[in-house]
């Protein structure tokens, strides 16, 4: 008998109260884009997340929708949603969720052999393995199937050469899921293979990328004759696009609706959201201005509609009422509404978000956030790509015409 959602939520609530600390005011700073953390502080957060993840695992609250033979709980998305409610307000392992659980673990669950799943899934659920996505390349952002990074077979091993980019946290991660070209003589989608790459081995060089807000979370990896055993191949040779399509589906669920991600819901942490805008407006005596109320009302609407939309689509995907491609609608809303809300935040802050007293970074936050605004519509698949998915895969409109179909990949025109 599966434990009822109500019983589970009560059990989870009781366990959390005993075993996890309440989230303090510093908790927001665990967000991946925190700009002012030192590397030592980052590493401390990573270590803390591994420890919290281990606690959840020991408490029977890791991998809610992962089958029990791989260390999970074998429950349903409704149970995961209940945990998300119960864990709200607690410190939780934010860094193990994405991309480790979704999309990486989700892809291993979908395509891994029994041996591969037994080896990696429990280690992931215990916080021992942190994973990254080796997907985008400097030469291709949205066109991920145009990967140039190449794996060449050598006996029982593969030899990997090339470069991947936009990998957040690769400098402290353990493993990466890598989409590589294994055949240049067939059309691009038919010559790809996915590998599980140990990031701590010879030939892997990781460079940090500094973003305009000072974050150095993103990395670029360079692979030089990196040797990968064939046992680390995920899925069939040259069938990597089948894996890749599913991979990118799971990536889109990062914005909401993934059954593998534990993420607090409901009232947001202190210092964020519409209530914070109200507090800030009141501090400067501006709350009663009609334009300020309009802006805050719109901001709050974006928050509430996003939650409602995510819940509705996740439910409909889970029940089979709509295809999982509908997750692109959540992704698009996330991008569009974040862009709008960061603009509102910035405009409400006014000149104070342009120049501030040394150290008063909370005042500058909306300004810095605005400079980084488009990141929410780029990372995790651009909103343009999600519009293509919605129109073509959800609504059945004609596919875009391309020049790289049905020709060997080595003959496809490319820059340089």
């Amino acid at each position, binding site marked *: 008998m599966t434990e009822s959602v109500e019983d589970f939520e009560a059990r989870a609530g009781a366990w959390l109260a005993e075993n996890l600390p309440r989230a303090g005011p510093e908790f927001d700073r665990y967000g991946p884009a925190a700009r002012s953390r030192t590397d030592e502080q980052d590493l401390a957060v990573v270590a803390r997340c591994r420890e919290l993840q281990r606690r959840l695992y020991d408490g029977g609250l890791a991998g809610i929708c992962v089958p029990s033979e791989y260390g999970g709980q074998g429950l349903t998305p409704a149970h995961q949603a209940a945990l998300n409610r119960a864990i709200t307000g607690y410190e939780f392992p934010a860094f193990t969720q994405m991309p480790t659980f979704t999309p990486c673990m989700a892809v291993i669950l979908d395509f891994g052999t029994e041996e591969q799943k037994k080896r990696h899934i429990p280690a992931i659920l215990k916080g021992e393995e942190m994973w990254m996505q080796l997907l985008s390349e400097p030469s291709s952002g949205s066109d991920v199937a145009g990967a140039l990074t190449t794996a060449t077979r050598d006996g029982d091993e593969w030899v990997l050469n090339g470069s991947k980019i936009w990998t957040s946290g690769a400098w402290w991660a353990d493993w990466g899921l890598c989409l590589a070209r294994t055949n240049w003589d067939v059309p691009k989608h038919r010559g790809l293979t996915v590998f599980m790459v140990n990031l701590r081995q010879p030939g892997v060089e990781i460079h940090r990328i500094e973003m305009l807000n000072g974050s150095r979370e993103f990395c670029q990896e360079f692979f030089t004759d990196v040797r990968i055993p064939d046992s680390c191949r995920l899925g069939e040779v040259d069938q990597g696009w089948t894996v890749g399509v599913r991979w990118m589906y799971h990536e889109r669920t990062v914005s909401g609706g993934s059954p593998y991600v534990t993420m607090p819901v409901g009232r947001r942490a202190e210092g964020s959201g*519409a209530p914070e805008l109200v507090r800030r407006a*009141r501090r400067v005596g501006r709350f009663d201005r009609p334009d300020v109320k309009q802006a805050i009302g719109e901001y709050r609407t974006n928050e509430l509609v*996003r939650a409602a939309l995510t*819940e509705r689509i996740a439910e409909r995907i889970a029940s089979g009422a709509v295809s999982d491609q509908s997750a692109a609608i959540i992704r698009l809303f996330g991008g569009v509404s974040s862009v709008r809300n960061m603009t509102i935040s910035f405009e409400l802050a006014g000149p104070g978000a342009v120049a501030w007293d040394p150290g008063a970074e909370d005042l500058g936050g909306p300004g810095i956030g605005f400079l980084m605004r488009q990141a929410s519509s780029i990372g995790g698949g651009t909103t343009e790509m999600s519009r293509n998915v*919605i129109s073509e895969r959800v609504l059945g*409109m004609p596919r*875009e015409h391309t020049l790289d179909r049905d020709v060997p990949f080595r003959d496809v025109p490319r820059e340089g």
Partner: protein
Amino acid sequence: MFERSPDQELFEDTTRRFIESACPLDRRRALAGTKSGYEPDYWRKGAELGWTSLLVPESAGGGSVSGHPVLDLALVAYQFGLHAAPGPLLGTNLAAAALARSGGSPGAGQHAEVLGQLLSGEVVVGWAWGEPAPGDGFGCVETSASDGGGGGYSLSGSKGPVEAGPEAEWFVVAARRPDGLRQFLVPSDASGLTVTALDGLDLTRRYCRLDLDEVALPAEALVGDADGEAASAALARQVETALVVQLAEMTGAMQWAFDTTLEWALHRYSFGRPLASYQEIKHRFADMKMWLEASQAVTGTAARAVDTGSSSRDELLSAAKLYVGRHGLELVQDCVQIHGGIGVTFEHDLHLFLRRLTADAVTLGTPAEHAGRLADLVAAHEEEK
């Protein structure tokens, strides 16, 4: 909007089939010239299907389908939107909800009789809550009910636009007493009451304005609770339900416009290609699909919050009205744009839905009013903490 139970699915489907057979879309233009915008037989049959009785308890002659009256009514409203159906759905149901609370009041006998006629579809009762400019703000009720002779009341003020045609024999009128709001049952031929039929955007939905000049009413005219606080709270619940009805209707109209325009884009050729093959058009459809899904999601969430009496219902209703009000109109106007010239003709059906959405978007509070209200609600919740 929300997952339907099998009973609700059957109920909704019955409503859909009835509207499609009794009042197909091509009847709208002929009905535009009629006084009430529908045929009396249509409304009586709709009442038999349950259109008027969902908010009324079984003990008072009504009954819901699923035990969730607000959700059941939202399904009818959704079908009204999906078919731009005629008929005084919102006003009748809200008047019924008010009359059904009259159990112990002095006028209970008469109210039950009017309610019975309303439930069977024989009589139309208008629900007069909002007021015309300058007192047209959301929630603004300035019409006064002062003490009249013999323990009765005297009502003065204006109401409108009230969703009811000239066939309305009664109105449930909201008015202010010193200690809160009340509702009164007023006959349309009451002395001192002037009912003016208004011209309007919607072809089949009729609106009127009531001007009340010291309309004398007996004590029995008081509908529902005698206590000011209880009466105000009951009225607030009616307004919540009215918003759910309106939102559900809007998302139904959005669905028709979207589906119809998608079909058009898939089959209309231009420069040797279907319209739907242009990325500019595809991306606009992606945005419209997002607006549609988001509108239905937040409407469903708000409807369930009203149904369960959740403390988040006020915020959700205003968020929904802001979102659906703005994006519903953008969606239908974008559908007009994608249709091209035919989209702004009287011949094409699109304007029936454009009219319905436009009328709904700014009644029961404009999107901007709800944005301001939502900011106040967030601030109030902050203070409570």
